[in-house]
């Protein structure tokens, strides 16, 4: 674990036992998050992004879910380091909301409909900082003001359904950041919102995390979000990370065919003006594979235009690649061994 690293995930595996068989939703994932860094976790829906992050806090529903292996090493400010998958449930619980907190995709369903938002924001502070009810309420109001809620003194007693979608997500952010966590995990925080609101929410997350030097894991399927927010990116496909790179490297020189496909499918304003402007928007052929009973092969090979013989029989190893920052890719095109 490097000096400024705060979280390191090693060989994480999470499985779901379903009627149609064992689903390996997260299959041997490793990545590292530095203090204050913003890391993007990108992929299509169902690729295991959310499960990865629920696994970090051991919030995967069990049954049917089960964390089958790996380590989640968290280093607290005092330098103590522990494996969140190995410690007691009680020890993880104390970290939740205090050191690592989460924002979820749909703020309407993620907020409790029968509790006042002030109560919901105050809960974590009350619990982790041992504040009394009145102090916690004052803190709630302060947090609501911080996230740009007009008239927080009055709205603190309102219920979630009385807020707009954007305001609800702001409430979620206030809730998540109320204890000044070391890490904020934002799971598709803008997907359920209007396009006009999306940028505001992202700006808010960006400015608040910068203020407190909070490390952020930004889960998204939207590369546009990643470009504006993140320092580095992990691209996930079918439960695995296929490419890791800094934002600059990834956007300027994508290595994995899947990453290339993703980038090519973003509509670009500048490209429209260029010579290829008339070209149709690219879409990756085929659909993501079923995660049931995956065999040893590159999971992307059925959709890959550059697929070779070996792709169908062996899993590509993670290969370190040169770039401006640390980067690696799991693809036989770039593998240094076994070709």
């Amino acid at each position: 674990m490097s000096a400024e690293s705060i979280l390191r995930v090693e060989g994480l595996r999470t499985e779901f036992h379903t009627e149609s068989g064992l689903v390996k939703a997260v299959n041997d994932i490793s990545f590292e998050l530095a203090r204050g860094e913003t890391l993007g976790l990108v992929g299509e829906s169902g690729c295991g992004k959310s499960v990865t992050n629920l696994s970090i806090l051991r919030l995967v529903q069990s049954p049917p879910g089960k964390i089958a292996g790996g380590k989640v090493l968290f280093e607290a400010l005092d330098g103590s380091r522990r494996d969140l998958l190995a410690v007691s449930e009680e020890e993880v619980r104390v970290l939740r909301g205090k050191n690592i907190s989460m924002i979820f995709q749909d703020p309407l369903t993620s907020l409790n409909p029968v509790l006042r938002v002030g109560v919901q924001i105050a809960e974590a502070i009350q619990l982790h900082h041992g504040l009394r009810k009145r102090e916690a309420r004052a803190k709630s109001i302060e947090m609501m003001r911080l996230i740009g809620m007009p008239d927080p003194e009055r709205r603190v007693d309102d219920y979630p359904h009385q807020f707009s979608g954007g305001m609800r997500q702001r409430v979620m952010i206030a809730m998540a950041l109320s204890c000044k966590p070391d890490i904020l995990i934002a799971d598709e925080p803008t997907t359920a919102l209007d396009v006009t609101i999306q940028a505001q929410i992202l700006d808010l997350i960006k400015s608040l995390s910068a203020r407190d030097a909070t490390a952020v894991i930004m889960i998204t399927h939207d590369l546009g979000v990643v470009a504006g927010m993140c320092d580095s990116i992990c691209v996930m496909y079918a439960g695995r990370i296929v490419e890791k790179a800094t934002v600059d490297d990834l956007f300027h020189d994508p290595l994995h065919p899947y990453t290339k496909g993703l980038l090519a499918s973003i509509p670009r304003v500048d490209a429209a003006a260029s010579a290829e402007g008339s070209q149709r928007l690219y879409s990756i052929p085929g659909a993501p594979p079923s995660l049931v009973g995956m065999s040893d092969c590159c999971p992307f090979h059925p959709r890959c235009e550059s697929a070779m013989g070996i792709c169908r029989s062996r899993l590509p190893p993670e290969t370190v690649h040169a770039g401006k920052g640390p980067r690696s890719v799991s693809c036989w095109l770039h593998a240094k061994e076994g070709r």
Partner: protein
Amino acid sequence: MGRYIAKRLLSLVPVLFGVSIIVFFLVRLIPGSALQMYMGTQVEATPQQMEELKRIFGEDRPVTVLFVEWLGRILQGDFGYSLRTGRAVLPDILSRLPLSLELTLFALFLALLIGIPQGIASSLKKNPVSDVINRIVGLLGLSLPQFWLASLMVLAFSGTRGWIPMGNYIKFAANPLRNLQMLFLPALAIGIGLAAVIMRYTRNSMLEVLQMDYIRTAKAKGLKKRVVILRHALKNAILPVITVAGFNTGYLLGGAIVIEEVFALPGMGRLALYAIYQRDYPVIQAIVLVIATLFVLVNLVTDLIYALVDPRIRLDEGKKQS
């Protein structure tokens, strides 16, 4: 809120009007007039007396007029007179209503006390074996006839002093503790079926709510399991349970009629049964009317409680007002 209550109260008027129509006209279906029934137990009457009686019983006027007159008297609190005792019906009912209501509320209390914790507990220990056991226990609770349970209780406890009222009923005001002790078994016999229903609803509702995103949010905050379940899950899961409990309170009231008979409790149920055995129709009409009104009011109260617990309902009304 006030306007919501007023609106709901107003909506009861047509329903209660319909109830009164049924209560009035069903009794008219009985072969033989009320006068004949009355005369059945009396000695001969002179022609003049018969004329007088016919006028009193309203046999000289059309039935719709009689209905309007009857309804008018009821609205003024005059429920008529017993054909057997000649006494006013309403005071007799009112003196027996408290016991039946107490029994019903006690049964409801026991049903909630048993059903909700059991439902929560079984929703947390979810595995195929306990699932099936819970379902069968729940269905079994529904399947045992209340009056049979009551009979078995009488059988089992007849040797134990104080638990079986049997003719020496003591009013709550006279001795609350003895009163509650006496009503415990009857209330349990009435409430156990509802306890089973409430258990199942609580359990299924909890299982559904525990899957919700906001439960994940609550867990992600680091809240203790107890807080997640009691504050976040239960408050949502209880909503359908309120509806079911309220809807079934009326059935508890019906059950009280039978159970009062088994335990020889001097409540409204016994009054009703003796009225039926003796064909005392004014009494029957009045009791049916009172119970149906109570039933409708209970449903209203249920809706109000629901609105109090679920902020979304209350505020939807608020929006309409503004």
